[in-house]
């Protein structure tokens, strides 16, 4: 009996650790481009944490398995939901495409001078960086 309870508790602790590490480490690894865009290692850890927690609760309902398990589920689902759902941007809105003419515009720069995009035609390539300043 004790053996079963201890084993179940262990599954729960491991599950919690995996979920916590998976979710939290993403924000420390966000400087690595492929991690930032895919969140692959973190997703694997968070899903593993979820699985371990479910197994723990299924094996035996103790204060540890239910407590740690619930926390682990919240952390995993919170993380997975944030990165794969909440942080997603719409991908279906494209007016422009490669090969098409770049739409012109006239906007003031940091010195108050109006910059017209078409004034660069013939002079050289232009890189437009639409800098979204926050999440």
């Amino acid at each position, binding site marked *: 009996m004790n053996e079963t309870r201890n084993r179940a508790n262990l599954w729960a602790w491991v599950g919690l650790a995996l979920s916590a590490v998976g979710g939290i480490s993403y924000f420390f690894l966000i400087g690595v481009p492929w991690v930032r865009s895919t969140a692959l290692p973190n997703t694997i850890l968070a899903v593993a944490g979820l699985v371990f927690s479910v197994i723990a609760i299924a094996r035996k309902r103790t204060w540890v398995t239910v407590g740690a398990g619930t926390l682990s589920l919240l952390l995993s689902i919170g993380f997975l939901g944030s990165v794969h759902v909440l*942080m997603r941007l719409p991908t279906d809105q494209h007016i422009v495409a490669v*090969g098409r003419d770049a739409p012109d515009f006239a906007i003031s720069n940091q010195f108050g001078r109006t910059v017209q995009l078409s004034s660069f035609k013939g002079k050289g390539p232009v*890189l437009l960086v639409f800098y979204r300043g926050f999440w």
Partner: protein
Amino acid sequence: MYKKNELPFDVLCDVRLEAINAYGLKHHEPFHNLDVSLPANILIDREGRIAWMHVATMVQDRMDPAEVLKQVNKLVIP
């Protein structure tokens, strides 16, 4: 800020969403209830045509500068 850092490029403030709408990049940010731009890099050649573009699919996604420079060099270096 620009005097201190001496930026060699123009910083445009698109308050009227002129460029943002022209390029189809408007995003209504739900949490702050604001209209902002999707993060994007658009490279235009000297004929005024779009040579390359990248639009982010996640809020935290920003292009790797090395990748952007690689695309720019294709147009600049013969």
